[in-house]
């Protein structure tokens, strides 16, 4: 029997970007998920694992974005619900797999499933990414914590051991200025 994670713990795990706990969650649920997916979908195991990873990323991203603030059932039910929808998408794409069962009681109206479809970058985005990759590691870390993880300046100060939020703010502004300079050089 797998360990179930309390919903508040999972939200905290995402909000604090605790990757070790997330990896544990990934491993804890994996075998149950594989059994469930194998018995409901006729797809190969590589696809199932790929979808399982995408479902974890989708769940993480949506909790991080504040699109899920409360789970109606358990975190695990949500995860399986997301995976189920991703598998259905995959089966429609392949047009070769028959859905055996469909039952779930989770509400996914607000969830963002298109996070991978937006990965294809246009020219501006490509240049932005190249400029971002050229930045110092510390700058990238601050930017990711602020813009992706949506940490507050105070939380970043604590996590990265800065004196206070003002120092983080100044550093973040310097980093953004540097990013703009790198972009101007490229464009």
């Amino acid at each position, binding site marked *: 029997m797998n360990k179930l994670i309390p919903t508040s713990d999972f939200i905290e795990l995402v909000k604090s970007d605790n990757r070790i706990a997330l990896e544990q969650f990934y491993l804890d649920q994996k075998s149950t998920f*594989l059994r469930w997916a194998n018995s409901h979908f006729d797809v190969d*195991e590589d696809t199932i694992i790929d979808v399982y990873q995408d479902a974890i990323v989708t769940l993480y991203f949506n909790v991080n974005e504040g699109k899920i603030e409360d789970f109606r059932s358990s975190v695990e039910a949500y995860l399986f619900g997301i995976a189920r929808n991703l598998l259905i998408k995959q089966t429609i794409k392949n047009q070769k797999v028959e859905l055996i069962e469909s039952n779930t009681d989770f509400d996914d109206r607000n969830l963002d499933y298109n996070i991978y479809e937006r990965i294809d*970058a246009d020219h501006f985005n490509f240049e932005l990414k190249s400029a971002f990759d050229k930045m110092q590691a510390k700058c990238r870390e601050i930017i990711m914590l602020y*813009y992706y*993880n*949506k940490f507050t300046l105070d939380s970043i100060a604590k996590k990265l051991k800065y004196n206070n939020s003002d120092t983080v703010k100044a550093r973040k502004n310097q980093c953004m200025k540097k990013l703009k300079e790198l972009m101007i050089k490229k464009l």
Partner: protein
Amino acid sequence: MPSPASDSQLIEDYYRNLLSNEERFKFEKKLKSDSDFYDLYIKYGQFFKLAEQNGNKDLKSSLQTIEYNQTNKFNNPSSKNQPKTFSIRKLIYSIAAALILLLSAIYLFNLGDNTSDSNLFAEYFQPYPNTIVKLERGEAEVNELQKTMLIYSNGDFKQAINNFDLILEKGKDSDLLFYKSVSQLSIGKNKEAISILEELKDKEIPSLKEAVNWYLVLGYVKENDNTKAKKLLEEIVDSNQTYQINSAKELLKRIK
């Protein structure tokens, strides 16, 4: 007139969902009436999108690393509790790994290079799996990158390097540089590989950092530079790195 700095802050707060309903209403009104503000809003949108892509790719990449490490555990006969899986991708990895061992053996035999460090390299080296493109069966059209990664996965590293160079002429890409360096290590172009890996290490790209560290160690080992190998292994062991951590600990003990 508000300063550009306060406009930026306002836009950031909007994207971070920090505005109240009233502030949000004013914000959306301003978007419609102020074209400079609108342009800045679009640019920030691109930036948030980049952060989102980077963050999600980085997370997916760590999950793939866990999976890869698990698969390796399964391939090790001492681990009997992993579920048995079989797939074309894993078959390709196995063939590539076998080819690498064979090529390494031929290389060592031909050069008469039988030093313990070269043996250590052959023992620990495996080409990094393709995690950047999907190679789907029955796909009608294969693009240049997919073709290159297929060549790489099949163990034809000389050809893969030529292909990587052609793609890289169009623009630098850290992922491709990394795979090029692994290919170079595979065919004994160690100095060239080390040079790329050191450059990538300086960049500290989150999604590549751990793999770059590991292959750089192997490059140093292959070049008999035990001082640098040991120093980097100590750095890996002292960090939170998970990729190849057990191999790194073991190798550190074995290096003289």
